């Protein structure tokens, strides 16, 4: 899968409370959650989506609550990929489970600047920074997790396993 888009950049420890504040957890509607995505972190996030759909952040992205509403809000906003130095573990699971692509790369996360044009080849294991003329290598995910992603998320994966 090749994803070509521009980077919106954030810092370390972007927590689930700023990704989707608890006051909006009275809904499970994707569109409703997307409307409030990152609203306590960056009021201009929605404007930025007009030119960029790859979120790049520092360490421990998605720390905090187990709310799956967080990756859902990001995915439903139209974000196509999140690159971070590291991810909080529950967020990582949730994103994989719902089919939001993630890349963990400290080098890429530190190097990429806001507005950089990127071309991510997740299968091939590289991210090209077209703006800066750089290529970052990314480690492949464990086979099992790749299997989940290929199935289109954990529910589809399990359905296949159960023969449903």
């Amino acid at each position, binding site marked *: 899968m090749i994803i070509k888009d521009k980077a919106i950049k954030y810092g370390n*420890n972007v927590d689930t409370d*700023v990704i989707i*504040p608890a006051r909006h957890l009275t809904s499970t509607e994707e569109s409703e959650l997307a409307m409030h995505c990152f609203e306590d972190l960056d009021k201009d996030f929605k404007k930025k989506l007009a030119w960029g759909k790859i979120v790049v952040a520092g360490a421990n992205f998605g720390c905090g609550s187990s*709310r799956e509403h967080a990756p859902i809000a990001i995915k439903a906003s139209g974000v196509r990929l999140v690159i971070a130095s590291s991810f909080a573990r529950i967020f990582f699971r*949730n994103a994989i489970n719902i089919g939001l692509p993630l890349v963990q790369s400290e080098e890429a996360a530190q190097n990429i600047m806001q507005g950089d044009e990127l071309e991510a080849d997740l299968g091939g294991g590289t991210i090209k920074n077209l703006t800066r003329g750089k290529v970052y290598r990314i480690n492949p995910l464990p086979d099992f997790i790749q299997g989940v992603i290929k199935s289109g998320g954990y529910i589809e994966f399990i359905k296949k396993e159960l023969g449903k």
Partner: protein
Amino acid sequence: MQKNPQTIAQKILAAHCGRDHVGQGEIINAEVDIVLGNDITMPLAIKEFKKIGVDRVFDKDKIVIIPDHFTPNKDIQSAQQCKAVREFASEFKIKNYFEVGRMGIEHALLPEQGLVVAGDLIIGADSHTCTYGALGAASTGVGSTDLAVAMATGKLWFRVPSSIKFEFKNNLKPWITGKDLILYTIGMIGVDGALYKSMEFTGAAIDRLSMDSRFTMSNMAIEAGGKFGIIEVDEITETYLKGRAQRPYKVYSSDPGAEYDQVFEIDCSQIDLQVSVPHLPSNAKPAAQLSDITIDQVVIGSCTNGRMEDLEVAAKIIEGKKVKEGLRVIIIPATQNIYLEAMKRGYLKIFVEAGCVVSTPTCGPCLGGHMGILAQGERALSTTNRNFVGRMGHPSSEVYLCGPAVAAASALTGKISIPGEGAR
């Protein structure tokens, strides 16, 4: 020395996938003992569960559902969510569904009711599910899709974590509880210091620590990014489990020679009462250094510090005194049993006479739900576990985290304060 020594986390995971040994970093598919959901994570899980297309849950007695976050229903939308959850519980004959009136904050209620025991592998669609590590269990938070799959199949994938050991040595200073130890620890290693890892809390100070304080410590393992926060079973654990464990339990311990990424020795005689300043739990400082900070609200409650020990400490400090004029002090016993016991011991009277609000069990303000939301620029001192931007209300409001002693002492002064030296 044993061949292939393992940590307690490895042993519990191995036992739940029918093996003697699992390697750190390996991905396994394991059977879970208890699966937990609440009024925020269940509605999404129900949607996903329906997509799987099974017509029954894997075991109706192993699923626990607790509407505790926005309950008693705070608005129409949360009422709708709770209704959907209630109907699911009734449709699938979930035995352990706790309605308002029997409900308590999940991570206080499950241990109290003996639903989670030593040696268990537990998942909950709530990040603080790691609390039950205090009972010698491997217990961790997951999301709603994982919850749906676990409800359908009783199994889930896990990556076997590596471990970090924390040895707490020497005696605690007066008024110090588990909260101070864990805030100090998170301050030391950072909010991602234990990312993907199992934290093991050991040492002489842990051996002497009450069960309530142990729950507080394991509860906040997630605030350092931890997957588990495990304390091995000892007499204190067994005394707690006796008479309440609903199933036989199993005692595991780490082998000598088990592999740890890091081992920290912490001298407890050097740890003062802690406060974590906004906006990360790792911003821990001695409370005494923050005496200029004025506050608008104090919250004593949550799955971290809404237990009997917390109310006891608070009652001792508040007894016979009045809360500072203009300050709102909200006290939330974590379960109905704790509420009742606090009533019997006269604590509720102490709190109400002092000018505190005492609430029915609920997560409430902890996650900015209800029962004490902050306005623009307001500041709360709270025994909860997170001080992220906007956690308790307006994005410009602030949360300072502390244990029950600092919260109660500050309730009397309106500024961050520590209690007098008086014996506990």
